[in-house]
């Protein structure tokens, strides 16, 4: 998740050659991407384990996926190819939406991190309880 997020947020460039570049103004955004990627990598497999092994409901994985999606979509640069495609297709309304994602990038990423932490906490608790020998 870290690699696609870095490409979308324009920290990682693949052409003309692979280069990683974080400017000073965007260090906070980069740090948040690292934490979101880490939490997603922990939380999503945990919930997949819960569903497959313990055959529990799929509601909690919804939270982890929602957290990952919010974290990924916040900060999508409206100048980038995704923003260009959306704006070219849907016009100025889409421009306003992508601008919202860019401008509220930090709060949205913090919210997604919070959601992922909450899901982690509830998942750990759930797994601990469900694994007790009856």
């Amino acid at each position: 998740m870290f690699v696609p997020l870095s490409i979308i947020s324009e920290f990682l460039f693949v052409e003309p050659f692979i280069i990683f570049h974080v400017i000073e103004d965007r260090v906070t955004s980069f740090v948040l991407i690292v934490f979101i990627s880490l939490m997603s990598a922990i939380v999503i497999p945990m919930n997949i384990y819960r569903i497959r092994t313990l055959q529990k409901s799929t509601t909690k994985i919804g939270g982890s996926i929602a957290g990952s999606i919010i974290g990924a979509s916040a900060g999508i640069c409206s100048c980038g190819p995704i923003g260009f495609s959306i704006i070219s297709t849907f016009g100025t309304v889409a421009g306003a939406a992508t601008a919202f994602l860019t401008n509220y990038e930090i709060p949205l990423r913090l919210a997604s991190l919070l959601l992922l932490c909450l899901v982690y906490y509830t998942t750990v608790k759930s797994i601990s309880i469900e694994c007790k020998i009856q």
Partner: protein
Amino acid sequence: MNKRLVVSVVFVVLVIVVAISFSSYQANLLEMHDKTKYLERIAAKTASPLVNLENGSPPLGSESAPVTIVEFGDYQCEACYHWFHNTRSTLIDNYIETGKAKLIFVDLPFLGRDSPIAAQASYCAEDQGKYWEYHTILYTFQDGPPDSGWADRDRLNSFAFSLDMNIDEFNECMDSSKYKKRVKANYDEAVKNGANSTPTFIIISQDGAIEKFAGAQPYPVFASMIESML
């Protein structure tokens, strides 16, 4: 058993369909790549770039500089702002002022309704010999999301005023939408050349070789590309 057989057959058919689709997609890509390379070879032979720059900005730097850096940008683009403030000045110091390269800005105004207006204002400033000063002021005072008002008509006028421009001439130029078609032509040229984000750069050598890449990439990328063309 029958259910498993049906599922297996469906899965195999899906895999074959995906493989065939992917192969033809790859073939199309290769064909386009070959076509692009063919066009580049033609361009190299005729020594004329594929990019039509006649509607772009006046060149920054010597017109006889061997390498041309074309920037497709939007004045409301945050990434363009970052490139302007983090990379551009070093590029100017090391390559443009030394006569090795020249920079031409071509508008790709897609982010909002103020984007093409700001682009038109830059050409109205060009009429008074202040294109690059106006270009600089737009990227210096970029403030807030697209269409937040930082580049509305009043602000554009205030930028012109701060550059000691003739405001009556500027207003006449803007009110008549004198450069609306020029900005549209630049937009079309950018899209024609495959620009789908801002900033996008095309670096053209003297013999017509082209390198294209996108994003507010750091200075070493530009240095590497330009050095390979000198």
